[in-house]
């Protein structure tokens, strides 16, 4: 189905679906916004009232605290963006630096999984270097990093976490069709819609199972469904279901798959228009028949209506009609059931017989059930013990520790002519973390710089792995006669959200104003469609709300009452 159609249908389903909301949040260090509606649609279509949220860009660690109450979390941790541009930087790193990145990421994984230990379902993608490895024979360092991280995850995965085999998704649709590099360099979006469609399809069974909606029984028609041929016409000796014949091999595979599902707890049943004695005889004594009476929980072999038979099957097995999957070769029967009992999932044996096993395999996810096994419980125990042991050597206990580990440094650039183009661009492009959303040209910025009553502050943030470039801006105007100042603009690129640098920046600005003998600072929040994020920023910083309308919130701060945030983990460097 086309993406725009999915968007449309998803919107419609949002209004019609009745069940309790199921909240999924995606934490990611790249842009994966297309996944939201695709995943919602996949689940809403199965009557799960899914609401998918996307965390802030590159805020996996921070969001693991913010979203731990979700029903499910998906962690989309992209290897090449662990640090910006890792796919090319990594080849030039020395061993120490490489190990440092490895250790940092392992620590972050620990911290994130620990924060999410009470979340009932957490999906984390296996790391892959495929996107940047081509067919080169020599293993690159990115692949080495992926291998090491994957081994690490495998060793310590708690029971509420499932690892998503990202490479399986990529292999199924092909690397070429999975990646769209057009948006990678400009917007840090790497994957195509086709990829996200396959990804949503792949993880769907986990989420369906978590909602208790996994199918419980697989019911087969018999003739040309469980064996080749029509028992009543071709006879006991001429039906085929062994690998000795071309068509028989296909049905042998189908029966083996049914048997395997049965071993995993799926109920198997028969529902067929046939003479019951004839079918009984096949079950009891046909040497090629793999399903025997011990596997078949129920059978309705008679000449009456299949819809009624299936209703009886559900009743007798004491499961809902929506827990049944029925397979038949006749389009007449298939359509009739779909029409009369749409709750039943009906599969039709494909016209091209060789596609039959593939069709069933594609639908096996319907039965996926991830209830805890004894082994899972053992793993949880092991993990808990391990976690206890590691308390002492844990790298960070809370978010402050985590931020401290980054060695954040904020470089302030005051009235700096050389960054005018970037400052203007920031004012034009920043939507989310932007208190007033005033758009300025380069000329406007130049005027602010030259005007002695206003100051333009820019900042860049660096951590021990790299520099963000100029990513924050504030413009402050001062009126010396009235001893008041006003924050004209205060904004920050979403690339640096989640590090609390905004508080350090405000501390700095207020300190500057204080030195100018200003007593009152005025500020505003102009509401736009996109800046809900900062609606209460000034409230959090002890400003007083003086007036509030639908579109503007006015604030006032008595400078002498300001309590600086004094964040120890951010070093402020004054360039000018």
């Amino acid at each position, binding site marked *: 189905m*086309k*993406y*725009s159609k999915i*968007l*449309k249908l998803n919107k419609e389903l949002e209004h019609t679906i009745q069940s309790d909301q199921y909240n999924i949040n995606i934490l990611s260090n790249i842009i994966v*916004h*297309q996944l939201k509606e695709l995943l919602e649609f996949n689940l809403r279509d199965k009557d799960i009232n899914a609401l998918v949220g996307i965390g802030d860009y590159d805020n996996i660690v921070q969001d693991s605290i913010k979203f731990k109450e979700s029903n499910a979390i998906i962690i989309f941790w992209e290897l090449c963006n662990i640090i910006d541009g890792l796919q090319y930087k990594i080849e030039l790193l020395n061993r120490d630096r490489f190990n440092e990145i490895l250790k940092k990421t392992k620590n972050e994984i620990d911290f994130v999984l620990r924060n999410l230990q009470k979340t009932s379902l957490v999906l984390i993608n296996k790391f892959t270097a495929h996107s940047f490895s081509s067919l080169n024979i020599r293993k690159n360092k990115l692949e080495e990093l992926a291998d090491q991280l994957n081994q690490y995850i495998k060793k310590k995965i708690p029971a509420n976490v499932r690892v998503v085999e990202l490479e399986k998704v990529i292999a199924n649709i092909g690397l070429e069709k999975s990646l769209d590099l*057009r948006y990678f360099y400009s*917007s840090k979006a790497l994957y*195509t819609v086709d990829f996200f469609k396959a990804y949503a399809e792949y993880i769907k069974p986990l989420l369906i199972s978590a909602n208790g909606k996994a199918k419980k029984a697989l019911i087969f028609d018999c003739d040309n469904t469980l064996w080749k041929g029509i028992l009543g016409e071709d006879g006991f000796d001429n039906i085929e279901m062994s690998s000795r014949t071309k068509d028989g091999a296909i049905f042998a595979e189908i029966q083996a798959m049914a048997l395997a599902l049965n071993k995993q707890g799926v109920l198997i049943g028969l529902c067929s228009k046939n003479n019951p004695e004839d079918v009984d005889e096949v079950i009891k004594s046909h040497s090629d028949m793999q399903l025997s009476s011990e596997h078949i929980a129920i059978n309705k072999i008679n000449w009456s209506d299949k819809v009624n038979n299936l209703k009886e099957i559900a009743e007798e097995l004491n499961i809902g009609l929506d827990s049944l999957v029925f397979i038949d070769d006749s389009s007449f029967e298939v359509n009739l059931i779909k029409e009369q009992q749409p709750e039943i999932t009906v599969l039709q044996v494909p016209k091209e017989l060789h596609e039959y096993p593939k069709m069933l395999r594609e639908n096996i996810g319907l039965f996926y059930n991830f209830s805890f096994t004894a082994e899972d419980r053992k793993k949880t125990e092991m993990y808990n013990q391990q976690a206890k042991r590691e308390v002492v050597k844990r790298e960070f206990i809370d978010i402050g520790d985590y931020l401290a580990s980054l060695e954040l440094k904020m470089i302030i650039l005051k009235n700096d002519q050389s960054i005018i183009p970037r400052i203007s661009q920031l004012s034009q492009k920043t939507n989310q973390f932007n208190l007033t959303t005033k758009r300025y040209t380069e000329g406007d910025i130049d005027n602010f710089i030259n005007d002695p009553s206003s100051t333009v502050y820019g900042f860049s943030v660096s951590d021990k792995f790299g520099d963000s470039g100029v990513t924050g801006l504030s413009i402050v105007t001062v009126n010396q006669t009235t001893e008041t100042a006003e924050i004209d603009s205060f904004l920050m690129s979403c690339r640096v959200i989640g590090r609390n640098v905004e508080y350090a920046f405000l501390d700095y600005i207020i300190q500057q104003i204080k030195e100018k003998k200003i007593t009152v600072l005025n500020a505003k929040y102009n509401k736009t469609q996109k800046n809900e994020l900062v609606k209460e920023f000034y409230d959090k910083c002890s400003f007083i709300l003086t007036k509030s309308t639908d579109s503007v919130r006015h604030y006032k701060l008595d400078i002498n009452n300001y309590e600086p945030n004094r964040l120890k983990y951010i070093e402020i460097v004054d360039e000018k």
Partner: protein
Amino acid sequence: MKNKIEERIKNVMSAVFEIAVDKFDEDSSPDNIESWGSLNHMKLIVSLEEEFNVQFTDDDITELINMKLIIAVLLEKLPVYRS
């Protein structure tokens, strides 16, 4: 032909921007469609590519910022509509 394309584009836009089809005209752009931000622009591009089975270049992507331009670029890319 042009009308038919316009119709299909409007349907795609309506799905992406979550606004009724009849709210779009030739001058629709990020200036008058509030939900037309950078993330939705990305969605629009991939939806149009899927709808018309075409591939836009980097330049196309930055240029396609109103309905008129979208129609013009698509007309160029779709051989059946040329003439």
